[in-house]
């Protein structure tokens, strides 16, 4: 079974803090994705990566950055957290085929 794990299920941070969300997949997938999920807005793509050290902006990259130093690991970084970044963050991975496999999500609250 494909497994995508995220470092935390729940996270509470203060405004202005630097936040790291980690994602690890065990299926040697080339592609990895970060989404945020908000009620009524669905899943919105923040960044994705199709290879180590490669990254591309998604639909809402502002306020975020990413890092992919190893194939299995994709990190989402909030340089200076703000309250409007309170959300559920979902990581996913896929091979060259189309199916994306999602992690359980990290619910981030920024106070």
């Amino acid at each position, binding site marked *: 079974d494909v497994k*995508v794990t995220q470092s935390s299920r729940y996270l509470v941070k203060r405004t202005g803090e630097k936040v790291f969300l980690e994602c690890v997949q065990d299926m040697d997938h080339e592609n990895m994705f970060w989404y945020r999920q908000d009620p009524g807005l*669905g899943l919105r793509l923040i960044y994705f990566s199709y290879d180590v050290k490669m990254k591309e902006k998604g639909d809402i990259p502002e306020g975020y950055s990413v890092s992919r130093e190893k194939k299995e690991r994709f990190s989402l970084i909030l340089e200076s957290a703000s309250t409007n970044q309170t959300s559920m963050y979902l990581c996913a991975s896929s091979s060259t085929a189309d199916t994306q496999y999602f992690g359980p999500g990290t619910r981030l609250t920024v106070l």
Partner: protein
Amino acid sequence: QQQVKQSPQSLIVQKGGISIINCAYENTAFDYFPWYQQFPGKGPALLIAIRPDVSEKKEGRFTISFNKSAKQFSLHIMDSQPGDSATYFCAASTAGTASKLTFGTGTRLQVTL
């Protein structure tokens, strides 16, 4: 700009009934249309998917109907069960985009006894 529009936002269906969720898209380059199912506390998981070379795909109680000319596709859940209660997302992607998906806004389905 919402490239994939999904309706309804929420749906209540009695056990044994048919649940229908609709999606419409704008980008004619889309060529892969999956549906994802998400239970509370879990990440979404692929339920069923279709490519535009067919008008319908059925897997058990779940069917995707696809209308290329209208740029619409829908999910039908026959004999809906309480265990089907979840949030459903339609999505679309184009070939050669590293499986980058554009998701709809989701439909929260509740199947009552």
